[in-house]
């Protein structure tokens, strides 16, 4: 093919995509070129599906102890006789013919590592979703209001942010965790707080923790939101909307937010690995999930004591943690590159 023909084809390709190439479509194309980023996103979607479908994928519950087979090594298959069949099920149907244990090995009390890993995805993803959402919500609202209001209100709000920026989060989080764990045991079962406490217990005692993590990390988001709002505030379409008589709320929700939400989401997704780490760290020092709920961090903690003779207890959750963080990092990088490249034109 000659260069000219290639060029024509490219033009034609552009035409096939449609008349006006919206920024989002541009970005998607750019993103798709970045193979690693796409792989990252695919992995994350895969993990999400796994988390949702967890009971379908696991032969055991995450707390089922097979006391006869503790610390089994990975890839050793043990056919369990019908005696143990009742513990072994496929989505509520007990398997009468027994089942083979142990893709990844088992832990100290014979719990299947594979099943615990699958359920562990729920914890890691929950922290990602809850903390990120809380942080995004508080941060973007705060930042938008501050940027939009401008003047003294803006000044004051940013001063407050600077103020809060200096608070050391980890020590505070550690102490808050202990506090929340106590609150959640106080046995209040009614009303909104009761519902929250029940939700907390369902998540293995982590809901409040995630809220706390998100609540302590909204500051960067707020700054970013404010910056974005400031730069968009000057644009013509805002002027135009105001001239037409649109209310402030309308301007914010219809014109500003859709534009700024992109970079904010990207920034937030780049922060997600940090949240996952934080949860792993807290579980590692014993302040995270309540046993028996599995979290990759708590599994590392439990397995760490036996690392000399049973390295799989640490390596399996460790590698999984690293892969998930990698995926978020690559995806986040890719998203950022995709949106930026659009702005700058092709390199």
């Amino acid at each position, binding site marked *: 093919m000659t260069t000219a023909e290639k060029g024509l084809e490219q033009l034609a390709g552009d035409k096939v995509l449609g008349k006006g190439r919206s920024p989002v479509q541009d970005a998607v194309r750019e993103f798709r070129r970045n193979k690693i980023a796409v792989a990252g996103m695919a992995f994350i979607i895969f993990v999400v599906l796994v988390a949702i479908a967890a009971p379908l994928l696991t032969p055991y519950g995450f707390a089922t102890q097979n006391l006869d087979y503790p610390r089994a090594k990975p890839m050793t298959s043990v056919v369990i006789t019908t005696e143990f069949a009742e513990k072994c099920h496929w989505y509520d149907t007990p398997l009468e013919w027994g089942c083979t244990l142990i893709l990844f090995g088992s832990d100290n009390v014979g719990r299947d590592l594979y099943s615990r890993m699958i359920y562990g995805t729920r914890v890691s993803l929950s922290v990602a979703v809850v903390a990120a959402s809380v942080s995004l919500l508080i941060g973007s609202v705060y930042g938008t209001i501050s940027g939009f209001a401008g003047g003294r209100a803006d000044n004051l709000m940013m*001063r407050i942010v600077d*103020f809060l920026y200096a608070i*050391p989060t*980890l020590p505070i989080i550690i102490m808050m965790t202990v506090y929340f764990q106590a609150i959640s045991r106080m046995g209040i079962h009614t009303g909104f707080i009761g519902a929250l406490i029940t939700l907390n217990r369902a998540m293995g005692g982590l809901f409040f923790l995630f809220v706390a993590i998100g609540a302590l990390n909204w500051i960067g988001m707020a700054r970013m939101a404010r910056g974005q709002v400031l730069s968009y505030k000057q644009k013509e379409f805002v002027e135009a909307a105001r001239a037409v008589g649109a209310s402030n709320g309308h301007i914010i929700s219809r014109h500003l937010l859709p534009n700024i939400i992109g970079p904010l989401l990207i920034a937030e997704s780049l922060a997600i690995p940090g949240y996952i780490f934080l949860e792993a760290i807290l579980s590692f020092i014993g302040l995270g999930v309540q046993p028996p709920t599995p979290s990759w961090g708590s599994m590392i903690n439990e397995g760490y004591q036996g690392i000399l003779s049973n390295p799989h207890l640490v390596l399996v959750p460790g590698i999984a943690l690293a*892969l998930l*963080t990698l995926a978020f*990092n690559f995806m986040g990088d890719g998203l950022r590159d995709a949106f930026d490249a659009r702005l700058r034109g092709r390199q």
Partner: protein
Amino acid sequence: MIKYIIRRLLVSIPVVFLIILVAFLLVQAMPGGPFDASNQKPIPAVVREILERKYGLDKPVYEQFFNYFVNLLQGDLGPMLRQRGQTVNDVVAQTFPVSFQLGMLAMILGYGIGVPAGIIAALNHNSTLDYAATFAAVVGVSVPNLVLGPVLILLFGVSLDWFPIAFWGADPPFILGLFPTPNAEFWSHAVLPTVALGTGISAGVARLTRAGLLEVLSEDYIRTARAKGLKERMVILIHALKNALIPVATVLGPQLAAILTGTLIVEQIFALNGMGRRFIHSVQEREYFLLVGLTLIYGVLLILGNLTVDVLYAWLDPRIRYD
């Protein structure tokens, strides 16, 4: 600039007060106290009351806070509740230098490897070297300390027996209260923890340096420089580097915070007598004064760190002026 620094310091004072208040209240809110049990055996109620009275823990919270604050202003961080012969000041003097040394070494390692690596990657953009470096960087950022630590111990400490697997190798008294005696024993102990902590930092720094330098290199003035010739290229490259380091400097602040977190884990794994490890331990023991004191120190470090970063930022980017 001086006025800016002074103003920032003044603003920090109420922040510090807030940190103390929040930490104090949180610590009081935690259920259970320091004198409930020892070694998993409960302490008789009679003795518990005596001990609480001795340390003023039976007084109302506002009175306790007031007393604490007054002592704090005199430089007294309070007593240790479970170790009678020691005060919080003693514990800080013993543990802070270790955390500080670890953090500094990790930073040096991180930036010392990260910046050159990022530069190399950026200058060889889109080559295999670049991809390899980027990949390595992302992996480095993604592997958590708490996996890297035990793996390092297993590999270099136990299997290969190159390095010792625990302890810091430098004890009090420290030089100028902060620095260790740099002998071979110290270095051999310091290698594994520093690598465990510094890898994540170097990876992050490499990514940022690369990204920043790439962005700068695509600017027009660079293209012009390329056209113009060698000497000017050098001058402008240095200028480019300075600009590229701006995003690196921006995250220096949060990096400090990350190092503070990271030392916690590394100290735990490598049995280092640092602040992070003592903090975790004192949460379980409900050492009220130590908890508040350490939180306060972390906060002050963060504030000073952020201030240093902002000043550095201004130096790097002449467009930024504080007044």
